[in-house]
């Protein structure tokens, strides 16, 4: 019989509270394992979200002991030690119930940042050839790996202060498309990220970069966007 440890889990909506559960402590246990144990064995009414369990889908992010993390690949050992574990919903997003937040504002901002690919070719054209070694492609080698988990968004101070700020993930996505040689949105995307809620609002605190589970640097993407916007403004192309 394994020993148990106390886990505090957020229950309810924004006006909810943490409730304590005693969960068996197991070897190589992840935070998602803990939440799943509670839901399957202790309290079936607990709401949480996950899909792949292997760090690909980006749906299981939660606030673990005060920091946003992907729970499927966060070991309890790494975050709790022998002390209690506190698991809550992501910050800066409306709580639906318990550990589930409404991701709509997060993805609305991807749309506002023109995060959709605008093709320049049609189905009748040949495949585009993009040299892996070209500077434009190498600039986005890392940025394309974003899984949209929302950890950066929940960790961003500026999002907390300024609710219409587009946030690290949407700006990282916009930068990826700006550098995509096949994309045709051009200056309209730069305009979308250059307004009051755009890239210039970033304070370079780098919480997004520190917390990104994929070890990406949205801060670097945002800094690149700032440079591109400034150059466009100086050249009169904005």
């Amino acid at each position, binding site marked *: 019989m394994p020993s148990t440890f106390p886990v505090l889990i957020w229950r309810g909506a924004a006006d909810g509270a943490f409730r304590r559960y005693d969960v068996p402590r197991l070897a190589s246990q992840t935070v998602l394992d803990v939440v799943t144990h509670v839901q399957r064995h202790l309290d079936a009414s607990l709401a949480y979200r996950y899909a792949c369990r292997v760090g690909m889908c980006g749906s299981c992010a939660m606030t673990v002991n005060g920091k946003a993390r992907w729970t499927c690949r966060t070991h309890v050992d790494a975050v709790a030690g022998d002390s209690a574990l506190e698991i809550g919903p992501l910050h800066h997003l409306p709580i639906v119930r318990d550990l589930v937040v409404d991701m709509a504002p997060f993805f609305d901002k991807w749309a506002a940042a023109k995060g959709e690919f605008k093709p320049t070719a049609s189905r009748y054209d040949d495949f585009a050839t993009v040299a892996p070694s070209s500077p434009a492609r190498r600039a986005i080698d890392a940025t394309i790996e974003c899984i949209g988990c929302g950890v950066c968004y929940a960790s961003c101070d500026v999002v907390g*202060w300024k609710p219409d700020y587009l946030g690290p993930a949407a700006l990282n996505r916009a930068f990826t498309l700006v550098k995509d040689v096949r994309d045709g949105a051009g200056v309209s995307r730069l305009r979308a990220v250059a307004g009051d809620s755009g890239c210039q609002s970033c304070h370079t605190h780098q919480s997004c970069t520190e917390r990104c589970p994929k070890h990406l640097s949205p801060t670097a993407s945002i800094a690149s966007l*700032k440079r591109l916007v400034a150059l466009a403004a100086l050249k009169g192309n904005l």
Partner: protein
Amino acid sequence: MIDAPLVIEDAPLRAVWYAAWRFVLQRASAAVLALCVVVHLATIIYAVRHELTAAAIVARMHASAFWPAFYTIFVIAVAIHAPLGLRAIADEWLGLRGRATDAVLALIAVLLLGGGFYAVRSLTT
């Protein structure tokens, strides 16, 4: 209760242009200030170490065309940089933005320019 989806419409082109130029001006003025502040501090340290009196400092400043020009540039950079920084603070900490806020910040810029030029004028006359 789930909040309604946050919809952000395309900002008017003028607002985008204004935001981009605010950023350019703040970065450019920061670069100027980085140099000016170093020179200013070095000047203060020099004056203290050589035990110069206020009158001696003013006399040296009067004798040179460089110092009034230098401090004119310094004042202009401050008058650009400070209101833009205050604008970000007003927006993020107080939720204040819009024309009324910008008008107050423009007034602060004018006051900084006025006070600064008044001080610089004493170096030339």
